Structure formats: structure tokens, C-alpha cells
């Protein structure tokens, strides 16, 4: 075709060409490295931004304002039946007793001022007194100083979110209330301290007394059920598929399906749960047992896949050695393969569970995206989970819930970090090298 003879390069020319290409290649390497650094830098800066915004909003949410009042705990009014039972205390007049001791400090005049003054103290004051009396009935008949959470609007005012110079009609609290609050702070009755409610309270529509305990326990119960169901099932499936299953069409189909299941949107599992567990088996809605079962379906593929990988990573020589000295298949699996694969399986399981911890979509269908006040005592009591609590708080109109939302996110993050740390520690502890 062409009569150009291949040109023979001299050593000098060749080294020049090589040199220039080396420079090019080095430049490419350097560029790749920079791209990588930029990517990491971006990811880290997003993370920092996220953390700073959540923590700067959330940390104040762990604290709140309180007012201290000297309350005379009148036995007859607090405990009308006189048997110190919760029912009797509920029927008592705790709320008025608290309001009256507030009136003593601020001296409101007329009906309007009295009505305004009532707004200062959280609606939960009566519950607090009942609880104190139940804990220690000896305080009845005495006058003792008790601290009560202030109403969320007052809290926002004291934090400076509601400004004094906004016209009174545009504020959530009017000038009379501000006058009373000023009076209380002048008497050193207002204090700012770590919230009694955020960690130990349950869901509430009054943001000043709302807490995450109910949702936290709900999350623990749900995850426990999820683990109890998903882990044994997942491991058993993985062992069967790796050690016993013949390699044929059917196992191949099963395998492909398991991998596909791992990518199914989680809300689908909720619909499945609704149709099967509630529809066919008639399980009650909103309970952690049901939530755990649905999340177990969701985490199963993750557990199976990681368990299979862990089993495959056990060196065949160990199995061969076991078979060689006459161990049965069961002995080989239970004495050698499983203990060696356990760290990998557990890591996969914990990561799967951490994923389940953050889910709300599948729970929507089965009634766990709900406002639930009572703290669940077991897996069959209605309960909700942390992400749902965050979701609900984010949607309420009261402004104090914005901080509470960030605080709950912090708790969820800490929970997640603990789970991931557990995965790392377990792996380090149980891992064997050869």
C-alpha cells in the first residue's frame, strides 16, 4: 500500500519520545490525583456544612428555659380521693395550684392579665407535680420550689428569636406576657439548663416537653425484631446457597433475585407488609414487631449477600483440612466456616441494620409514621422510630420544633455512629488473619 519503510529511530530520538510521553503520563496522573482530591474535598466540605448546621441548631435544642416557683402542695386539692393513686392525682387540681403560685409572684390584675400569665408555664406542669408526688408523697403539705419548663413561645422569646421590638400584634406573645417574663427574670426565677425532656420525654405537641425517648425505644425494639428475624434467616440462606445448593438454573434464578431485591425501593416492602402481615395475618398496625418484620424483609438481601461473601472468603484449605480429618459437612460449617465468616457476616448485618434504622418509607404503610405518646413497653405496643419522629417534628408549625428536629438528628447520628463503631470493633476483634 505505501512504500514508506518503517523508520528506525535512533536511541536519542526514541528516548525523547519516551521522555515526552512520560511527562504526559505523569501529568495525567497528577490530574487524576487532583480530581480525587477535589472530590474528597467537596465531600468533606458538604459533610462539615451538614454537621455545623445540624449541631449549631441542635445543641441549643438540648437546653431550655425554666421558671422556678414556690408551690404549696395542698394535699386535699392535689389528691382528692386521698389514696395517692395516679387516677386521684389526675383528677386533682395541680394545674391551678401552679398557676396560683405564679400569680403570687407576678400579681396579674384583671381577667386579661391572668389569662396572659397562664401562657407562661408549659401545659405539662400538672404532670410534673403528679410525678413528684408519686415519687415522694412526703412533699405533700409543704411549700417547695419547683422548676417548670416555660411555654415554647416564651422560650423562643428568651432565646431572642421573638424580638422585643416587633410590634405587639405581630408577636406570638403580647406586651403583658413580656412584662411578666421580665418580672420573673428580675427575681432570678428564670434559668437556662439542660432539658429534662429531650432525652427522657415522649412525643408531645408542646415542643418544650417533647422528647425522643419513645421513638428511641421504638427504634431499639424494631431493630431487635429485625435482627432476630433477618440474621438467622440471612445466614441460613447464605450457608445453604454457598455450601449445599447445587449449581443449576434454579439457584441461579434465586441468586439473581436476591441481588435484585437488594435494589428494590424500600417503600415496596411496606406495601408488602401491609398486604401480608396486616391484610392476611391480621396483625395490629403501628407496632414495632410489624415494623421489625418489614425491615427484616428489607435487610435480608444485604445480609445474605454479605454473608455469602464472608463464607466465600474462608480459605478452602481450612474446609479441606476439616473434611480431611473426617469432619461431616455440618461439623465443618459450624466449627470452622461460620466462626471464621462471622465477623464479615456481622459487619454486613450491622450495616444493613443501620440502613433499616434510617428508614421511614416502609413504615408509612404499616402505621408507624404516627404520633404516639405512650412509650412502648414491648414489641406489641404501638411505637414509632427516630427518623419518623424527626420527620414529624420538622413538619409542626411551632418554631421550637426546628431546634428539636436538629437535636433528634444528632441523637440519630450518634446512634448510627455507635452501630458502625460496633461493626468495626467486632470485625477487629473477631477477625483472623492467615
Amino acid at each position, binding site marked *: 500500500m505505501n512504500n514508506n519503510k518503517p523508520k528506525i529511530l535512533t536511541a536519542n530520538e526514541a528516548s525523547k519520545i519516551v521522555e515526552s510521553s512520560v511527562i504526559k503520563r505523569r501529568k495525567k496522573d497528577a490530574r487524576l490525583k487532583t480530581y480525587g482530591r477535589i472530590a474528597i474535598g467537596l465531600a468533606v466540605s458538604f459533610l462539615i456544612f451538614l454537621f455545623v448546621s445540624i449541631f449549631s441548631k441542635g445543641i441549643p435544642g438540648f437546653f431550655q428555659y425554666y421558671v422556678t416557683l414556690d408551690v404549696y402542695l395542698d394535699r386535699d386539692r392535689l389528691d382528692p380521693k386521698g389514696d395517692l393513686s395516679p387516677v386521684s392525682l389526675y383528677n386533682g387540681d395541680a394545674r391551678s395550684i401552679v398557676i396560683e403560685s405564679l400569680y403570687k409572684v407576678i400579681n396579674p390584675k384583671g381577667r386579661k392579665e391572668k389569662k396572659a400569665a397562664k401562657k407562661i408555664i408549659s401545659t405539662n406542669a400538672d404532670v410534673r407535680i403528679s410525678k413528684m408526688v408519686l415519687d415522694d408523697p412526703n412533699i405533700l403539705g409543704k411549700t417547695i420550689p419547683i422548676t417548670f419548663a416555660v411555654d415554647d413561645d416564651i422560650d423562643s422569646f428568651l432565646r431572642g428569636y421573638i424580638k422585643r421590638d416587633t410590634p405587639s400584634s405581630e408577636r406570638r406573645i403580647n406586651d403583658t406576657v413580656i412584662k411578666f417574663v421580665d418580672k420573673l427574670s428580675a427575681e432570678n426565677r428564670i434559668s437556662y439548663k439542660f432539658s429534662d425532656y429531650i432525652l427522657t420525654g415522649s412525643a408531645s405537641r408542646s415542643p418544650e416537653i417533647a422528647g425522643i425517648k419513645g421513638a428511641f425505644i421504638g427504634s431499639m425494639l424494631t431493630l431487635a*425484631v429485625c435482627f432476630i428475624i433477618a440474621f438467622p434467616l440471612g445466614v441460613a440462606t447464605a450457608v445453604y446457597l454457598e455450601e449445599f445448593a447445587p449449581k443449576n438454573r434454579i439457584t441461579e434464578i434465586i441468586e439473581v433475585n436476591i441481588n435484585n431485591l437488594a435494589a428494590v425501593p424500600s417503600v415496596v416492602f411496606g406495601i408488602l407488609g401491609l398486604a401480608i402481615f396486616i391484610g392476611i395475618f391480621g*396483625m395490629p398496625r403501628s407496632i414495632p414487631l410489624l415494623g421489625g418484620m418489614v425491615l427484616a424483609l428489607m435487610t435480608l438481601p444485604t445480609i445474605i449477600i454479605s454473608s455469602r461473601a464472608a463464607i466465600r472468603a474462608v480459605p478452602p484449605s481450612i474446609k479441606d483440612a476439616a473434611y480431611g480429618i473426617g469432619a461431616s459437612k455440618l461439623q465443618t460449617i459450624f466449627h470452622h466456616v461460620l466462626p471464621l465468616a462471622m465477623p464479615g457476616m456481622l459487619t454486613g448485618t450491622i450495616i444493613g441494620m443501620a440502613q433499616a434504622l434510617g428508614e421511614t418509607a416502609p413504615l408509612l404503610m404499616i402505621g408507624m409514621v404516627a404520633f404516639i405518646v405512650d412509650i412502648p413497653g414491648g414489641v406489641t405496643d404501638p411505637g414509632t422510630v427516630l427518623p419518623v419522629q424527626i420527620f414529624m417534628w420538622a413538619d409542626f408549625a411551632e418554631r421550637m420544633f426546628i431546634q428539636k428536629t436538629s437535636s433528634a438528628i444528632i441523637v440519630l447520628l450518634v446512634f448510627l455512629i455507635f452501630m458502625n463503631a460496633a461493626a468495626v470493633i467486632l470485625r477487629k476483634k473477631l477477625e483472623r488473619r492467615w
Partner: protein
Amino acid sequence: MLKKLITAGFVLALSTTASNAREQISIAGSSTVLPFATIIAETFGKDPTIKTPVVESGGSSVGKKGVCEGIGTKFIDIGNASSRMKTKELAFCDKNKVKLTEIKVGYDGIVVANSKKGKVLNISKSDLGKALTAKVAINGKMVDNPYKKWSDINPALPNVEIRVYGPPTTSGTRASYAEMVNEKGYCKKDKDAKAALKAAGMKAKKCRAMRTDGAFIEAGEQDNLIVQKLQEDPNAYGIFGFSYLDQNSDTLQGAIISKTAPTFENIAGNNYSVSRALYFYVKHQHMGVIKGIDKYMDKWVANWGDDGMLADAGMIPMPAAERAKYAKAMKELPVLTADMLK
């Protein structure tokens, strides 16, 4: 270890099927009613003899459909809704032999608001409909909404781009807004629109569609998100429930619609026209089976007044006569029939 776990799992599963009875009231539905229903549920649950009702979110359709789904403890007892039940929805109830009583609990105003840094929108309902409906009448024809700025609609309106954040199609707030403003405020009132619709053979219902060219922005079900957006962008407006305006009255201002400002008094006095009623539907067959449904309803009566907790949270109370009517309905439990919905 493994064996123990598996047996524990089975025991757990068995124990629930055995104890199927539900002790607490189960409620689901509208996210607009939820903040108020939860207040009632929480106050109700303070009674140590009672378990606090569970209030699920999900939207009005979930409430209405859920309560009609069947009889038995696995179904909810009360469905909340921010739009009235339709005959079609009631037919689903009849099919499942569910009998209901309708209780109206109060009103909720829908406001169009913006940041205090921006201009107050003083607009007629018809112009407001023109701003956001997908098709408007121009020269006797229904065409895609051409208005870019508020002042294009009416020179008296601010010379800023139309940018309104609002809820998505799944929301009851959106449905009510589209019906009250787009359909009833504009297409059924405006002469040009009526003529153009007739010429095109379209029904006024078609006007409920919101424009999709970017002037109306769906901001998700989270009303707080819209509030945040408005605080950042003084030229943007948002559509949401009155309680969010009430909570943020120091940074947001409500648009004056047809010469009426969205204040508590105006909505309660029925002067402000963009408001809708809030309902719950209680299932007869569960009364007495689930303990405390009657007492739960009593709590509504105790708190839905002008000075009650619900008004403080932003719900607009009904007039006294209407309150008396529905308090009576709670006692007598008239069965909801298709005729009553007409």
C-alpha cells in the same frame, strides 16, 4: 445462640397473634388535622386509665379510605380529613358495611403569604386564580397562562415575577386552594373565562390544574420548608395553612384576598373566603369495642372553643351554633348517608 434467637422470634410472633385486641384508639388521615388531633389525643392520654390514641399521618384520602376499609381492630377507628367525604368514597364504606358519623371540628384558612421584607399582596380572588391556574381566557380562548409578573395581570399589583411555592398534588391544602381560588374564584366568576370555557366546551373543574411553567413551585408536603424559603426570598409567595402564618407572624405577612386579610377573626367570622372545614369520621362499629372513643370526642368539645387549646394552635373555631350541632351529633351518631353529602 442461634437456636435461642430463632425460638425467641417464633414465640414473639405467636404471642402477638394471640393478643390481637387493640387497647388504644387508632386514628389516621389528613396532615392538616393531625396537629389538632394530636393535641386532643395527648390531653386525652394524660388520663392514667386510658392509653393515648395513635394518630397516623398520610393525608385526607388515607383517612377517608382507611376508615371505610372494614370492621375489626386491624382497621382504624377514626379518619381525619380536610376535605369532605365524597359520595364515591362513601360507597366504598357501604360496600364494606362500615357506618360512619361525620363530625366537623373547625376551619383552617389557606393563606398566600410572603416575607415582611416584600410587598403585601392585595389581590382579588379572581386575579389570584389568574396568576396560578394552568390555562386562562385571552380573547375568548383558553390558552396557556402567559403572565410572568403580577403586574401583567393587574397594573395595581407589584411589578415582581410570579413565584409561588405550594404543596404537591397529594395535599388536601392544594386541592382546596385549586377548587376555591382557581375554579370558584376565577373560572366560575370571571366573565371572559366563563365564555371561553363554554366556547371550548370545557368544565370549570379543568381550572383546578396549577400552571407548570415554573411560576408555581411544588415545595413538598413540609409547610415549614415553604416558610423558610419565603424568609430567604422576599419576592416569593407561599401557599400554606393559617397556623404556619400564625406561628411566624413576625416574619411573614398574609396576602389580602378580596379586601380581607387572613386574620384569625376574619377566618372565624367567615369573611376570609379561602378556608375549608376540617372533619373526622368515626366508625360506629368500633364504638364500645375500642374503649374511650366517646371520651376522645368529648375532649374535642372541651377544647374546640374560641379560647381553647386548638384555637391557640391555629385552628379556626366553628360558630357556637355549629359547635352545638356537632356536639349533639357525637351523642346521637347519625349515620352518614349519600344524601347528606349532596
